[in-house]
């Protein structure tokens, strides 16, 4: 698969700050991949997301999206290809009702009304919100609003879906809904949809094919979730959470029990514990 996003030597500094928000970052994202970018608050991960579709302008370095350079000339074409869901469900809801909001992106692209009606329906079905089409945002939960935001993105059929801390303001149930929804969409669309999830929820990151760790504007590490989570102490040192299963493993090791070196999710750990139990 070819690269859908290529970032080279990216550097960015906010005008009012004297610290580099991002410092010499390079990485690639393959088409159809699911990449998680993790880092603690203020590490620069949301800044990175905004640079990708030219909401912020890089000081140095280059970004390519679908072989197009991210710059003033290409910005609107690039925004066609990238759909973004932001952190605060309330502050990205433009429309007065659910269907109006889903249609907003299409209105901006001057798409015919008949076409919009079909696509609004489809997008709402995809996120399972079709019965809420006429509802006003104030009658929806945070998780429902985020699902509407995702529907708005789907309606414009993007190649890349960026979730910029999209689950961080939701309750556990809402968070689970969104994660399951993204998994479902990824499964349906396969390589046509690339997902970049910016998060500090480690369980969300564990679902990705690849994790990129950013700390104080620098790229610390990239790798598969199993590799990354295998060294738990380092994550803790970077101010990140360690998945629960990984914590149990660490505690077992301290108690003198030999554990597997690769990453286990909760179910994997449970299976391994059963095995251990029956071996003894």
């Amino acid at each position, binding site marked *: 698969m070819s690269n859908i996003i290529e970032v080279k030597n990216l550097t960015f500094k906010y005008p009012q700050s004297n610290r580099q928000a991002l410092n010499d970052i390079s990485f690639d994202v393959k088409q159809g991949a699911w990449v998680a970018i993790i880092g603690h608050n203020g590490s620069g991960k949301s800044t990175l997301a*905004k640079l990708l*579709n030219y*909401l912020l302008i890089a000081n140095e370095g280059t970004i390519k999206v679908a072989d197009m350079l991210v710059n003033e000339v290409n910005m*609107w074409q690039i*925004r*066609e290809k*990238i*759909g*973004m869901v*932001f952190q*605060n469900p*309330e*502050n*990205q*809801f*433009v*429309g*007065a009702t659910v*269907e*109006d909001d889903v*249609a*907003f*992106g*299409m*209105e*901006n*692209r*001057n*798409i*015919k*009304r008949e076409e*919009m*009606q079909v696509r*609004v329906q489809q997008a709402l079905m995809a996120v399972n919100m079709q019965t809420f089409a006429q509802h*006003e*945002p*104030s009658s929806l939960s945070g998780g429902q609003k985020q699902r509407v935001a995702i529907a*708005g*993105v789907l309606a*414009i059929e993007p190649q890349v879906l960026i979730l910029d801390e999209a689950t961080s303001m939701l309750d556990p149930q809402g968070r689970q809904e969104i994660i399951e929804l993204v998994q479902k969409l990824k499964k349906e669309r396969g390589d046509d949809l690339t997902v970049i999830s910016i998060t500090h929820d480690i369980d969300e990151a564990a679902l990705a094919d690849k994790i990129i760790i950013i700390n104080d504007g620098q790229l610390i590490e990239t790798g598969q979730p199993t590799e990354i989570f295998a060294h738990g102490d380092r994550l803790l040192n970077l101010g990140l959470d360690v998945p629960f299963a990984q914590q149990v493993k660490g505690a077992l090791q301290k108690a003198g029990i030999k554990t597997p070196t690769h990453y286990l999710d909760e179910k994997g750990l449970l299976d391994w514990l059963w095995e251990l139990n029956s071996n003894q």
Partner: protein
Amino acid sequence: MMNKLIVGRFVPKDSFVHRMDARAKVLLSIAYIFIIFEVTNWLGYLIMGLFTIAVTSLTKVSLKTYIQGIKPLIWLITFTVFIQMFFAPSGHVLWNYWIFKVTDIGLLNAVYVLVRFILIIMMSTVLTLTTSPLAIADALEYLMKPLLKIKFPVYEVSLMLSIALRFVPTLMDETERIMNAQRARGVDFANGGIIKRVKALVPILIPLFTNAMKRAIELGDAMEARGYQIDKPRSRYRILVWHRRDTMACLVFGLLLIILIIIKHFI
């Protein structure tokens, strides 16, 4: 409290007036004000009054709701009526004291003004009770279209208006939350003189403003990310549809105007 003033006015129901096009309702509400100034005698007011009551009953909203619509304006009405009553320029003097003078014409004018006021309020209440704020915003956009000729940003203003309406409940909730947070810190909003109460508003307004700014910036980012560009043609998802009933309503208004003109000149 504010909720009732701005959003809570709309009473969703299924009536002839509710189903009418918002453009027709806005236009006819304006036309009504002009028509009522064509009325100069008792018969005219009687017809106008009956017509207005007929319209309000067509909305299926109780008359009580309309009377409540008049209440907030009771002082303005009283003031205007008294001015008419005491400062009449001509007519037979019935009562005189210092600069105040009540004449028969003045008294009659005062009653006319009172009736006129009440009728206009009732008719504009018909508009706000039967039309969602969003539909009114859409109608205004359509009616402002001629202003495009003088480069007035009609579409931008209308989008601003609909976003403002959409954020009213959000900011209401936020105000409530901030007030509770300040109450928990011992701020008293209910007691004290007017100066003390106005001062107590400062710790609500400052966080409310800063948060509104933050929201605006984030919303701007989200809109741009979704491809919003000023000055670019946008298609419309929500449209207004003019039906036969709207044309009919306009004809009824026209008929009313003709009747009133005949009464004014021949009776």
